[in-house]
């Protein structure tokens, strides 16, 4: 499946459309950047409540194609601009991290 396929879930809204053709191979959930940096795998959708611009550096360095900002948090303006530059997709959801993770697992088998 690719990033675009995630939009089959109505709970997800696109904040930045990056390279939506990139493959999604799994998911990772976390808010401590070092932990995500050291453990997320390339191709994983990253669920977090962090919304500041440093999340783009983490995603870019780890090869994360899509960041899902959960719990109703919205990305900063700086985050949006940098994500565009790096072609990283940002989606938002009102759902808490656990609930959106559950949906990704049950809907897509991630």
């Amino acid at each position, binding site marked *: 499946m690719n990033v675009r396929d995630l939009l089959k879930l109505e709970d997800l809204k696109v904040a930045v459309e990056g390279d939506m053709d990139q493959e999604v191979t799994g998911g990772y959930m976390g808010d401590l*950047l070092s932990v995500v*940096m050291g453990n997320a795998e390339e191709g994983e959708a990253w669920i977090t409540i962090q919304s500041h611009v440093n999340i783009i550096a983490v995603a870019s360095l780890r090869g994360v194609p899509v960041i899902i900002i959960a719990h109703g948090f919205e990305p900063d303006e700086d985050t949006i601009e940098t994500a565009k530059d790096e072609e990283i997709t940002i989606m938002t959801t009102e759902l808490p991290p656990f609930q959106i993770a559950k949906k990704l697992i049950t809907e897509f088998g991630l």
Partner: protein
Amino acid sequence: MTFNYVVDPEAPERAGRASTRFKGVLKELGVSPKVIRAISIAMYEGEINMVIHAKGGTIRCDVDPDKITVVMADVGPGIPDIEQAMKAGWSTASPEARELGFGAGMGLPNMKKWSDKLLVETELGVGTTLTMEFNLT
């Protein structure tokens, strides 16, 4: 080949830029994904440390046929207790930095874990220089 980067203390939100740029260089040079991953993680941690603990600094990356050396030198407070700083989970990051998801206490431990050699030289009130080596063979 040598690549130099400056980490700007006035733009903490830009931390990770040098690592991202150097990752692009390594990709172009055809370095293996495994080594790129290790360097990305370790260098990112160093860059974050330079911003949240020090007043920025400089990074010098040397690419040789058998290894890549990354030297990160900051102007900062220095590390009073290296043994403690090397412990996973130990952090002196400010509450503000923690709110942003930094200060997990994984900086130096991650640098040690992902590099093949780590040298820490530090002087209180002067600064810290980290030298990391990554084997290519």
